[in-house]
């Protein structure tokens, strides 16, 4: 909102999910800069292109599946190709929704990082959310931003900076790189590892593209093994970016990728889903045990089992 107040060229376009993506305040504050395009995402993306060609900076906040997967070709040809300053904001990343396969954006980072000209962000904490807009004016081209919603933890006081990983801990035994909603799980695992005497370097990655932070390269190179942790398919997300980086930089250490394996997912509450698909703190500990030859455990393990219906599970779809 502050960004829109400072930038009169900002307009907001939604697809029938205005309140669900917390854009209703924008609608009320800037009614002349808000457009509802209804449930027609392909046309909506073309309209974004037209608005940007009129000199505007359009934001399209929606559930990430409807931002990325549904109008993919329109984004490629009408937004990414002409390198227009359109801001695509994807809510409900990965397994943070009980909405099932239709609502779980498990491939959005993969789709967006593949597009030339596209800058890709994966926000992890409240500071990221509050400060990432300050980086937008310097980005010459479109941005896809994977956005957490609701109660978001706060890890950092240092504001978001494009292309800069943030260091939660330093250590030479193992390197953990996490992003987005997987970062809190990775942080919890790293605490356990530290308590067990393992020196862990944990970096939180909020910029997936460009992916050229030298501190990331150094952290990987300085450690005998690296674990990536993400709320996304292991293919095409952070794990792939790190694997490519290691291969091209000639870093000959071991990599374990914690993320959703090659599978579609189903509906459930996030704790269950994170456990079931192996992207929670336990999964990180398991990966570390395999790499370090240790046998650590988490005290309060969440067992992947079905639980009863919860009212919060139906929220916001």
């Amino acid at each position, binding site marked *: 909102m502050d960004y829109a107040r400072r930038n009169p060229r900002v307009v907001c376009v939604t697809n029938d999910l205005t309140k669900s993506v917390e854009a209703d305040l924008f609608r009320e504050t800037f009614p002349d800069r808000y457009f509802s395009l209804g449930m027609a995402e*392909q046309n909506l993306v073309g309209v974004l292109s037209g*608005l940007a060609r009129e000199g505007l900076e359009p934001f399209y906040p929606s559930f990430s599946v409807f931002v990325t997967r549904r109008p993919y070709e329109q984004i490629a040809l009408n937004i990414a190709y002409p390198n227009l300053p359109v801001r695509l904001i994807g809510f409900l990343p990965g397994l943070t929704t009980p909405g099932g396969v239709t609502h779980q954006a498990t491939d959005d980072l993969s789709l967006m990082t593949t597009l030339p000209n596209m800058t890709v962000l994966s926000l992890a904490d409240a500071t990221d959310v509050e400060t990432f807009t300050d980086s937008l004016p310097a980005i010459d081209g479109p941005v896809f931003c994977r956005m957490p919603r609701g109660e978001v933890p706060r890890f950092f006081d240092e504001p978001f900076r494009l292309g800069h990983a943030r260091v939660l801990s330093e250590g030479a035994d193992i390197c953990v790189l996490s992003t987005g909603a997987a970062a809190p799980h990775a942080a919890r695992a790293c605490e356990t590892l530290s308590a067990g005497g393992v020196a862990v370097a944990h970096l939180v990655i909020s910029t997936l593209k460009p992916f050229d932070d030298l501190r990331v390269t150094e952290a990987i190179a300085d450690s005998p093994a690296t674990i990536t942790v993400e709320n996304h398919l292991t293919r095409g997300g952070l794990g792939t970016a790190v694997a490519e980086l290691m291969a091209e930089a000639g870093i000959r250490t071991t990599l374990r990728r914690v993320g959703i394996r090659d599978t579609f997912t189903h509906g459930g509450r996030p704790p269950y889903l994170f456990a079931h698909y192996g992207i929670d703190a336990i999964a990180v500990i398991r990966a570390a045990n395999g790499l370090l030859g240790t046998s650590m455990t988490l005290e309060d393990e969440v067992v992947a089992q079905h639980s009863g219906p919860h009212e919060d599970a139906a929220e916001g779809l």
Partner: protein
Amino acid sequence: MTSAAHMSPPDGDVADGDWLAEVERVAAMIRRRGFELAEKHDGGYLIQACSSAEILATLYVRLMRLGPPPANRTPRPFAGTPGPGRATQWGGEFNGPDVAGADRFILSPAHYSTAVYAALIETGRLSSDALDDYNSDGTTLEMIGAEHSPGIEVTGGSLGQALSVGVGRALWRSRCGDDGLIWVFVSDGETQEGQTWEALQSAAAFGLGNLRILIDQNGWQVDGPMATVMPVGSITEKARAFGCAAFEVDGHDPLAIVAAATSGPEDAPNVVVCRTDPRRGFPAISGRTDAMTHFIRFRPGEADEMRASSPLYSGALTQ
């Protein structure tokens, strides 16, 4: 009710009484250039030039209020696709500077680029020898144009998408009170894409009277006649049902095109469905019943036969 501003003749070199003859001359030359390019390159999008010639000529000569073309009308060599620090979307310059009050032209079916290049040449916006480099490596005059190609403002090669871009532009201009119009050229095959109807739905909902859509209904798609591949019914009636002001005209009649494109209420998008003949100017194509006329490749002797039978080459400019 019709907007007075939209009814008055556009700026241009053509005097009011002469525009019809000029449209007919430009249309004939679009066909001739389309034919000669197809002959030279052993294939091309000829039937598209034949069906759309009067539509494009009427747009460039009469309907659109375009600013002056660039001082240097020679197309630049390919300089890369757009990217950070590389603003290479300059094809639109040939339609005049992109400023408030000036109309914009969006070609949706980019395989009609040849016809647009010809229209630009004939209206003095592009150098007369520009087509010498057509579809050669490193040129911007591509067979299916992109945003660096003269006259091409939106990369519309994947069909059914560019109308939405026009909606976005018309939407903001409408909100700003800018009286520049957004003209979008659409082919009838694109109405098979659902996005076309999403776009018309939104254009009508926003009351975009500044959006003018001309549809070339030549009835053909790659696999053959649309009626046999996937019939779409009446585009005109559908457009009306979606809330547009829609008209159906003979797409080779410039007077009818102008009348329709300047009619309708101020608060509804204007759709002109132009019924056209993909063999116009080259009756010899009528021997073809196969689907390969979409991108025509001449059989031995066929080009000579077409030239001999064409009124375009017998002194009569129009059929």
